[in-house]
């Protein structure tokens, strides 16, 4: 990890129209991703974590705000050539290894699809060689190239998805719940692979997940989201040692630890109530309806996003 900013997200908003109302999936979020780091993004379903990933890649058009990649604002009108360049540098790995691969394409076609677009001058031989290399890199082999997705297990499919994302030599990869659909014993294989690739190729990851222990393990820094807003961002050690936001605390304490002795001694914070609808979020701080520490001010004023300790950002009236 260096101190060079690779991606700067500034006041990003993504609102969806829902009839007459607006769903604020991403509501005024600002953060940076440094070169070579893994930034974990956690939150419960519907908090907008996937929407952030997709908006950064321009799969969704941002409603407002900027995504700056190496100093260049991607929300501006870019020429087709520039757009292609950035599409090449930023790739995505999807959650569901079953629906993210076209069942009618062979692995060779799937992995080389990006190459066909971004390296039109590559000949067939070169291309298939490149695919074989990639397959080997992710722990598959040459013989797999002629097969179709249904012939593979979930873990192997996820490896194909990773190979596809690496085909065009990206610098930045958004991994959206890449292990959520996999069995425990397979999850570790894929996580180790992602870490290895990062080390060997200097990749930068935005790792979106809901599994806190895995996120802590893979990420350098972790951002926590709740209802379209970022509530806390800090290094992963700091987040687990000294969580500040009441939501982060509750989230951490809700994760059951697979160790009977520790589990017996733990005091669990159980949040009452459900996550409110993002169409009609509570006034002020959106967490206040479930927050055990809520005060009057929380209903009135949206808490500011501020750095309360070095590299430790939080949006809460308690700090």
């Amino acid at each position, binding site marked *: 990890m260096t101190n060079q900013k690779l991606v700067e997200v500034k006041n990003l908003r993504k609102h969806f129209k829902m009839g007459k109302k607006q769903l604020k999936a991403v509501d005024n979020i600002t953060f940076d991703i440094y070169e070579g780091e893994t930034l974990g993004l956690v939150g419960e379903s519907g908090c907008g974590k996937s929407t952030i990933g997709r908006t950064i890649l321009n799969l969704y058009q941002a409603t407002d705000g900027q995504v700056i990649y190496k100093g260049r604002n991607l929300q501006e009108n870019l020429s087709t050539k520039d757009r292609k360049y950035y599409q090449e540098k930023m790739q995505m790995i999807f959650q569901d290894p079953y629906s993210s691969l076209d069942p009618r394409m062979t692995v060779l076609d799937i992995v080389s699809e990006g190459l066909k677009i971004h390296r039109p001058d590559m000949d067939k031989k070169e291309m298939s060689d490149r695919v074989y290399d990639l397959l080997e890199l992710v722990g598959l082999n040459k013989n797999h190239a002629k097969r179709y997705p249904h012939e593979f297990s979930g873990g192997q499919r996820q490896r194909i998805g990773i190979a596809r994302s690496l085909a065009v030599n990206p610098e930045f990869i958004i991994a959206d719940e890449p292990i959520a659909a996999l069995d425990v*014993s397979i*999850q570790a294989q894929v996580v180790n692979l992602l870490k290895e690739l990062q080390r060997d190729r200097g990749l930068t990851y935005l790792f979106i997940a*809901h599994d*806190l*222990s895995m996120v802590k393990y893979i990420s350098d820094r972790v951002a926590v989201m709740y209802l379209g807003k970022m509530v806390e961002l800090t290094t992963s050690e700091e987040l687990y040692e000294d969580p500040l936001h009441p939501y982060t605390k509750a989230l951490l304490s809700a994760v059951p630890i697979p160790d009977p002795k520790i589990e017996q001694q733990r005091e669990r914070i159980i949040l009452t109530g459900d996550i409110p609808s993002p169409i009609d979020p509570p006034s002020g701080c959106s967490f206040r309806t479930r927050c055990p520490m809520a005060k009057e001010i929380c209903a009135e004023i949206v808490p500011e996003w501020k750095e309360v300790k070095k590299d430790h950002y939080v949006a809460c009236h308690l700090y």
Partner: protein
Amino acid sequence: MTDTILSVENLDVSFQSYNGLIKAVRGVTFDLKKGETLAIVGESGSGKSVTAKSIMQLLPKKTTVINNGSIVYEGNDLLTYSKKEMEKIRGSEISMVFQDPMTSLNPTMKIGKQVMEGILKHKKISKKEAFVRAKELLELVGIPNAEERMKSYPHEFSGGMRQRVIIAMALASDPSVLIADEPTTALDVTIQAQILDLMKNIQKKTGTSILIITHDLGVVVNMAKRVAVMYAGQIVETGTLEEIFYDSKHPYTWGLMQSMPKLHQDRSVPLIPIAGSPPDVSKLHDGCPFAARCPYVMKVCHNHMPDQSTISGTHSVSCWLQDERAPHVEKPELGGNNVDKSKTS
């Protein structure tokens, strides 16, 4: 506490398919005691849900073959019951909570009516009484304004709320056994904590025995006192929570624990995954099904299934490493909270 309420013995469940018989569950044996919680853990395809469904006899009759074993509930073998007799047991004595709260409720029926349906089925009471009972149940599982919410349809409820409704329905006639098949897998962590808490509170109040089926070792620790680990249709190890987490003997159990990062784990230590992927249960050979992925595999493992060895009164394991002729293997560091880097890297 020590009386057995449900005992499954030597259960074999197979399915007919184009590729011949698929042996989904092979020789599964376990006891569930009164008032206790037993967890069955395993990965997808290990046969844990099939075991649960065969207790409830919810498997498709046409293609399911149960050619061996017994499921004894309070002295009677459920496998010999007729469809009618089974209907009396199902939902009243033994009930089940399913994984997906989104699909296990009828979307066209009001919540109140769905809860009352189960009550009216098993108890000869008037609709009015059933309504009162349904309201009590929904209050018990923590649904605010229960009377009001009974008029809602399932789509107006969140996932956690729906799972509460399903638990309420399962509890409708005070079952003595509650089978929960991945009850929190589809839920967010903070909601998962609520539901697990709810199930524990209900157990305290009603003394129901719970059989919980899950792939999440964290949930196991939170809920259960005893654990059975399943792999490829067989129970490979069973013991108390402490025995499984601190003194496990089966390499698969070790592998499961090693492949999970702990909240306090050092990030520079790589995870130790289990190599390969779970076997195809339609193509099993005679030996130990874990042999192909086991780091301690010996010749014998490929051809002969190990017998069950008893470690203590509550702890048993099926592994050739327990044989006196096998080399002594030290249990690896299971990546607990004080990971020794030199050993694991």
